[in-house]
């Protein structure tokens, strides 16, 4: 077997320019975790079914396990590590804590990224809209109740109510 030649990628992660070398078949979640040591992005399935690896790619919510790392060239990536402002938690993070909306916490980074994306697009979603928007973020611990309440509550904070 000839080793695949690595690809040089220049991209922007959480507002900062960054470069890495990846294998042609390597997916973005893997590159974030293993090349950039940003392990906040989790991998639960690697087939786009669980949402734990959710990141924003040029403003679109995606599963980073279904993006080739090489595709990140010239693009903008936002991960869970970039959600808080320094030591100030984002309202969605704060509300997840206040509502005890995480148990094991493995799905939480994906929920944070996806819920933020929802509330930025639809500042005042209904419970049903939150549930459908987050349908791709599997949580096996909570039964979703407290997560949905936390997201709705974060919405009120973000709207300044």
């Amino acid at each position, binding site marked *: *077997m*000839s080793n*695949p*030649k690595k*690809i040089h990628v220049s991209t922007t992660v959480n507002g900062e320019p960054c470069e890495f070398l990846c*294998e*042609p*078949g390597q*997916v973005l979640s893997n590159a974030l975790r293993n090349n950039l040591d940003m392990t906040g992005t989790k991998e639960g399935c*690697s*087939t*786009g*079914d669980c*949402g734990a690896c*959710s990141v924003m*790619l040029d403003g*679109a*919510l*995606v*599963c980073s*396990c*279904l*993006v*080739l790392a*090489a*595709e990140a*060239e010239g693009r903008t990536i936002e991960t869970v590590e970039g959600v808080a402002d320094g030591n100030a938690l984002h309202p969605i993070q704060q509300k997840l804590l206040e509502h005890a909306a995480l148990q094991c916490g493995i799905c939480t980074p994906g929920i944070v990224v*996806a819920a933020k*994306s*929802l509330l930025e697009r639809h500042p005042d979603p209904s419970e049903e809209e939150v549930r*459908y*928007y*987050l*349908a*791709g*973020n599997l949580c096996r611990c909570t039964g979703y109740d407290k997560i949905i309440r936390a997201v709705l509550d974060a919405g009120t904070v973000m709207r300044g109510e």
Partner: protein
Amino acid sequence: MPLLQYEAPTSLAQARQALAGRSDAKILAGGTDLLVQMRLGLRDPALVVDIKHVPELMEITLGEQGLRLGAAVPGAVVTDHPEIGQLYPGFVEALGLIGSSQIQGRCSAGGNLCNASPAADCVPALIANRATCNIMGPDGERTVAVEAFNTGPASNCLAADEILVSIDLPRPGPRSSDAYLRFIPRTEMDIAVAGAAVALSLDEAGVCIDARVAIGAVAPTALLVPAAADALIGGTLDEDSLNRASAAASEAAAPITDKRGTVEYRKKVVGVLVRRAAGVAKARIEATS
């Protein structure tokens, strides 16, 4: 053999060049099928050609003639578009049903079509809307009706060096609308067990003057069911015509039994979906007229 090469051409000509003579290549649009298949060891391309930097594949043109949708435009871009959903609500719903919010950030109508899953959600909706495919190959461009594009599960009419560039949806006439419904065991995240798209035109009296019915996940490819449309045309979508359309769809269905459903169940449910989708399309026309 693992993936050895990744190319991201920025023009159709470059894309064609990259693909020329490479039977071991795969086109990457949103990757929501291809990368899963690679992960599960079902596909092993040596070269992946990312066509998202080719402008024609990423453009949306909405005009007098209708919609030209670049083959790789992500679902979320279409569902967020202010006008497309008004013209083709059923198609936009169908596209929006593919996977999660995350998948919507990447998946595309063209990819859904090229992947050629019998259960692809947006294919019946495209067929019901008389959509056509614009294909670029070494000998220039050709056009194929969506219902003729797929030739079986995981196979389509594209030659190895051809690219699906865009999909045309003709502008619907007055008092027209469409609807797509699918059945899945959960509310989200499943592959369709059966799907049905219905596009209708009604006259002022509410009589159906044109109809297209297409069904998915119940045959090797999505099927246009003229007999179901015929049952609707000329009537007022009354109980009798809905029954006949439903029966025609069940009759046309030629499904398999697999982990997602049985032959019997799929035949039955696809009829239920045709009836319900016709009702939704009709209600949409009535709501906007």
